[in-house]
């Protein structure tokens, strides 16, 4: 495809779990802080005060969304930094108490790879199995606790298959045993209700660009009284916990996005669930040899993840992309490694099923017309790729033999 065609082609963007577009209202709120009120909030003059006030207002909106206190919200550069900070800091600060951390096998790489780093530095990690829907059993979490356990970290909702974890139950268990509980809530934050008190969450990671805010900003919620060590050492920003000149525009944007998320949540959830279930129903009924990955009900409102037999996901993705439909896949061929998605393998999918997976993630502004177009394109793409697949050939010939 030529460069100008790529720029002008009509696109249906259904990859909102990768990143979301900035809400126009969010952008509008950010703009003055690029040009008019561009002061460093750490300075002492009146212009700095304006920037500082804006950051504090944003902090308040974010705290309110999850029922936290303002001073429990610490701004970071995004979800990966927040995850790194939470795990590395607790491992460091609590080393006299123990060296054992419990996580699941389906965590984001920001958690998994941080754990691998910690393992090289004397920390012991338990990676918990999940069931075929991607849910971790709270009873197994409890059984994995041992004398030296210092932290439990379970993601709020999975980024690939959309499964929502039993966070409140795990939070209760952590509290009962006096162990800190962290959740990577990047995919759930602003999408579904979160209450850090009701759910006994001690640390929570979130990111601006997954909730219609800008990239380059995120938060770590840290329950008051938990001792931390900065990941980024330097100046006294964020009460001395996270150095670096405040990303004022990013912070203002994430704050505005949180405000909108809280205001419109129930309306958006209803809309997304309706479209999500429509997509799932259409695909499962119109495309043979397809199956849903993840939980049918305990699922993010905007997530669809389906495996197609006899085709490989990256080629389906490319075919759809050629028609302007943007989706994602768990195939090895798209991951840069030789193994398909660790999440799809953890829910028990054979490699073939994981290679043939497609993830569709919608937003509150996605329309019925768009998803119908996407499913039409998906159908044609899978049909075309099956028609050139030797696996499908072999399968059909075997079926014919069976019939005879």
């Amino acid at each position: 495809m030529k460069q100008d065609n790529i720029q002008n082609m009509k696109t249906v963007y259904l990859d909102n779990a990768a990143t979301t577009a900035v809400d126009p209202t969010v952008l509008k709120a950010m703009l003055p802080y690029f040009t008019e009120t561009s002061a460093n909030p750490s300075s002492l003059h009146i212009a700095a005060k304006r920037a500082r006030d804006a950051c504090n207002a944003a902090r308040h909106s974010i705290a309110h969304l999850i029922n936290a206190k303002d001073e429990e919200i610490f701004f970071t550069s995004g979800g990966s930094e927040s995850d790194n900070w939470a795990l590395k800091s607790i491992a460091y600060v609590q080393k006299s108490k123990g060296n054992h951390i419990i996580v699941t096998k389906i965590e984001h790489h920001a958690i998994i790879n941080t754990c691998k780093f910690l393992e090289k530095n004397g920390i012991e990690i338990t990676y918990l199995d999940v069931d075929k829907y991607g849910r971790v059993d709270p009873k197994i979490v409890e059984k994995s606790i041992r004398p030296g356990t210092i932290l439990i970290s379970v993601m709020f909702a999975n980024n690939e298959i959309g499964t929502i974890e039993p966070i409140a139950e795990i939070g209760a268990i952590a509290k009962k045993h006096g162990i800190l509980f962290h959740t990577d809530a990047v995919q759930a934050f602003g999408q579904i209700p979160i209450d850090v008190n009701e759910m006994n969450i001690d640390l929570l990671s979130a990111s601006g660009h997954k909730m219609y805010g800008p990239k380059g900003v995120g938060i770590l919620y840290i329950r008051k009284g938990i001792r931390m060590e900065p990941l980024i050492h330097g100046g006294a920003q964020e009460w001395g916990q996270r150095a670096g000149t405040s990303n004022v525009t990013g912070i203002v944007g994430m704050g505005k996005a949180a405000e909108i998320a809280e205001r419109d949540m129930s309306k958006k959830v209803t809309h997304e669930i309706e479209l999500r279930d429509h997509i799932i129903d259409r695909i499962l009924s119109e495309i043979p040899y397809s199956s849903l990955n993840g939980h049918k009900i305990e699922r993010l409102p905007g997530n669809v993840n389906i495996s197609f037999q006899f085709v490989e996901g990256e080629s389906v993705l490319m075919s759809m992309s050629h028609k302007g439909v943007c989706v994602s896949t768990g195939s090895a061929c798209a991951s840069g490694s030789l193994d398909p998605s660790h999440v799809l393998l953890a829910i028990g999918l054979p490699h073939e099923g994981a290679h043939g997976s497609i993830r569709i993630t919608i937003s509150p502004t996605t329309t019925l017309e768009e998803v119908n177009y996407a499913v039409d394109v998906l159908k044609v793409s899978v049909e075309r790729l099956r028609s050139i697949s030797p696996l499908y050939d072999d399968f059909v010939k075997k079926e014919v033999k069976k019939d005879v």
Partner: protein
Amino acid sequence: MYDGEYSEKVIDHFTNPRNVGEIVNASGVGTVGNAKCGDIMRIFLDIDENQIIRDCKFKTFGCGAAVATSSMATEMIKGKTVQEALELTNVAVMQALGGLPQIKIHCSLLAEEAVHAALWDYAEKNDIIIEGLKKPKKDIYDEEPACSR
């Protein structure tokens, strides 16, 4: 170019692959790859009495690069002699496609292997020996394949 991005030629051969299909009563058929690894290629050859490849078709399960390399490899051996087809290297296929991302190089190896497997089948059927041709791996439905190639 972004790391891992496909060239225009790869996208063209993926979107409009040449020589897709099968040949009934082919002179030689070769299937390589493994479903667990995410790619399988099957190449059909129609070879005349002068050992010239009259026609060549393929079916491929795999990523964009796997489909594109199959398409290009079949284009490159059509009309060639058996010996010339045997000399087709994955590097030549890659170059003809304007290059492949680093992590996709194994896909081009698969195309080379598929051609060799089809030639082996042809040689076996006709009880001839093709100088320099090695017996292909048969691990299409293996449970524990070596995916790296």
